[in-house]
């Protein structure tokens, strides 16, 4: 706005300046408007905790994804001492930051590789459920009628059943039913756990999107688009969904945190990813519980990694919520 002031002052003192010139100049030369994205980024930067969390999260993701760069062992390598015996229950020390477990596996390595899986499940489940949930929710909200009714009844039903129970029962399916094996993946695999979690997560997403679309549907810009001849699909994809992107992004982020927690719970109970196949933070915690008396680091490693990750994701989600304030983005 300083620009207006300066320009107005400059224009006003020029000889021959007329009132019209001053006002038009002042009006015409506005400050370059910031795009919503830039505005959002600026607001996000202000949220210090979110910024710090984003950085920490990045570190965690990098370390887990590129685990081989950060550890020279594999998760199931058995550490042996020079005389060939197994190095079991080593205390945390240089070279073995979190010690070793009862079989001699390096725990720090396990936490890294475990993180890979936990994060993968979290992110993929969140993305898949958001994708499916958005499409169904928008369609239900837009078309209304039987589609909407069906959606509400189905989600009512599934949300009535306690989540953990449903998840546990479903994880048992691939072992017994071939169709479940093709649909979900092999029993107790990363793929099956991801799919099953996503199978429940799409429902709250759909309900939220449906609600958003219901309120947006009545706004003038939708009527205008329809009057201009836009097809239903076009309205949904080019007008409605873009106005929900803020909410969608926030939801997805928070879903990641929830999915990571859920995977942890399932794997802890033994229904999640099979520890024989690969570690995850959840099954590492279960493993550690048997050893707590001897080596607390076994619990703290995966425990703190999990809590820190979820915490950072939630802070980032909160920062996004501030940045993508619905008042700024939607009509």
């Amino acid at each position, binding site marked *: *706005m300083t620009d*207006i*002031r300066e320009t*107005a*002052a400059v224009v*006003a*003192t020029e000889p021959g*300046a007329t*009132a*019209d010139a*001053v*006002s038009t100049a*002042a*009006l015409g030369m506005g400050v370059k408007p910031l795009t919503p994205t830039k505005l959002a980024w600026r607001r996000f930067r*202000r949220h210090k905790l979110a910024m710090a969390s984003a950085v920490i999260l990045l570190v965690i993701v990098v370390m887990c994804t590129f685990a081989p760069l950060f550890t020279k062992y594999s998760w199931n390598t058995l550490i042996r001492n020079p005389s060939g015996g197994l190095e079991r229950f080593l205390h945390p020390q240089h070279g073995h930051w979190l010690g070793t477990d009862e079989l001699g596996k390096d725990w720090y390595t396990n936490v890294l590789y475990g993180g890979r899986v936990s994060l993968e499940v979290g992110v993929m489940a969140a993305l898949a459920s958001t994708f499916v949930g958005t499409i169904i929710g928008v369609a239900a909200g837009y078309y209304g009628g039987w589609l909407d009714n069906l959606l509400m009844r189905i989600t009512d039903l599934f949300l009535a059943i306690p989540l953990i129970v449903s998840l546990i029962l479903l994880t048992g399916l691939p072992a017994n039913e071939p169709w479940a094996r093709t649909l979900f993946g092999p029993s107790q695999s990363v793929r099956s756990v991801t799919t099953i979690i996503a199978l429940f997560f799409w429902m709250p997403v759909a309900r939220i999107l449906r609600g958003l679309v219901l309120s947006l549907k009545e706004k003038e810009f939708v009527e205008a688009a329809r009057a201009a001849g836009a097809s239903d699909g076009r309205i949904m994809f080019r007008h409605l969904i873009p106005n929900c992107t803020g909410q969608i992004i926030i939801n997805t982020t928070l879903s990641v945190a929830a999915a990571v927690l859920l995977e942890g719970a399932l794997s802890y109970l033994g229904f999640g990813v099979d520890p024989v196949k690969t570690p995850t933070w959840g099954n590492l915690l279960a493993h550690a519980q048997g050893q707590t008396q001897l080596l607390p680091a076994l619990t703290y490693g995966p425990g703190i990694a999990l809590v820190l990750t979820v915490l950072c994701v939630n802070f980032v989600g909160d920062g996004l919520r501030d940045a993508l304030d619905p008042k700024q983005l939607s009509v």
Partner: protein
Amino acid sequence: MADTSLANLLQSSESADTRPALGERVLEIRDLNVTFKTEDGPVYAVRGFDLDLDAGEVLGIVGESGSGKSVTMLAVLGLLPRTAQITGSVKFRGEELIGRKPKELQAIRGEKIAMIFQDPLTALNPVIRVGKQITEALRAHHTDLDQREAMGRAVELLDSVGIPRPEVRVMQYPHEFSGGMRQRAMIAMMLANDPQVIVADEPTTALDVTIQSQILELLKSVQERTRTAVAFITHDLGVIAHVADRVQVMYAGRAAELSSADVLFHRSRHPYTRGLLASLPSLTGRTGRLLPIVGAPPSMLNPPPGCAFHPRCPNAQGKCAGEQPPFDPIDGDPKHRIACYFPVSADGPQT
């Protein structure tokens, strides 16, 4: 309409102070500044505003959204959020209100100075019965009243504002009332303690046009009966024509023009006021293009320097961007003041 019962009612209620004499200055605002602390920086909602209100008159306060008209009166009552920084002086019958302790302000609100709000649907608590909300107002200031007596008064009050079957209505919830009736109920609630000043903040804006005139009539009759001072905030000049004795035009947190209603509609001098008048569609007379005021109201984060209106003003010249023009009398009439270096000529198209 039971006008007599309202008058009786009001005469029978006690108040600690005596009512002001006709013409006595009840509200005096000097150099009021209200700044809001926000994430994006300070927002200067009210900048150096003066106002006088006398007993028995209706002062209309006109302005666009963001002109600061509501904020001013909310500041008077101390109803602004904690992010608001208020400086200046607001005197109610000689007593300074700025800086008073909350408990003291509570005694004044609802009893000496009452405020009627814009949207009665959101301004009334949706889960409490209307009668209870009225008795709450009564018993806050008359602690000797018990609930039964208070309820009786509430019924009388609802009756006095023209609500049929008040004994039934008093037990109902706000959403069971129609829009106009809700506003009547709000008025009844705020009049319950016989205030000396009524601030009406856009009371008819949220209502249908037909209901609007009913409510305006109600307010006028109340005011005529009780000779209360009324500050009527609105953006609608048509309403002003209906009810106001004097008019204060506000723009961007400052006073633009002050005059009697008659003078305003026939001999206004401020370009902004003229702009407002010119943009009114005329139901009689020639049809033509509507003349909106060019541009948009300024952002109060960074108000324009000098006269706030100059970016949109057809008369603006260099001086206008420099220093804020003083709010001085014009045309030799001390009751007619404007803040403008290059006022519009006295003649010209009017409404």
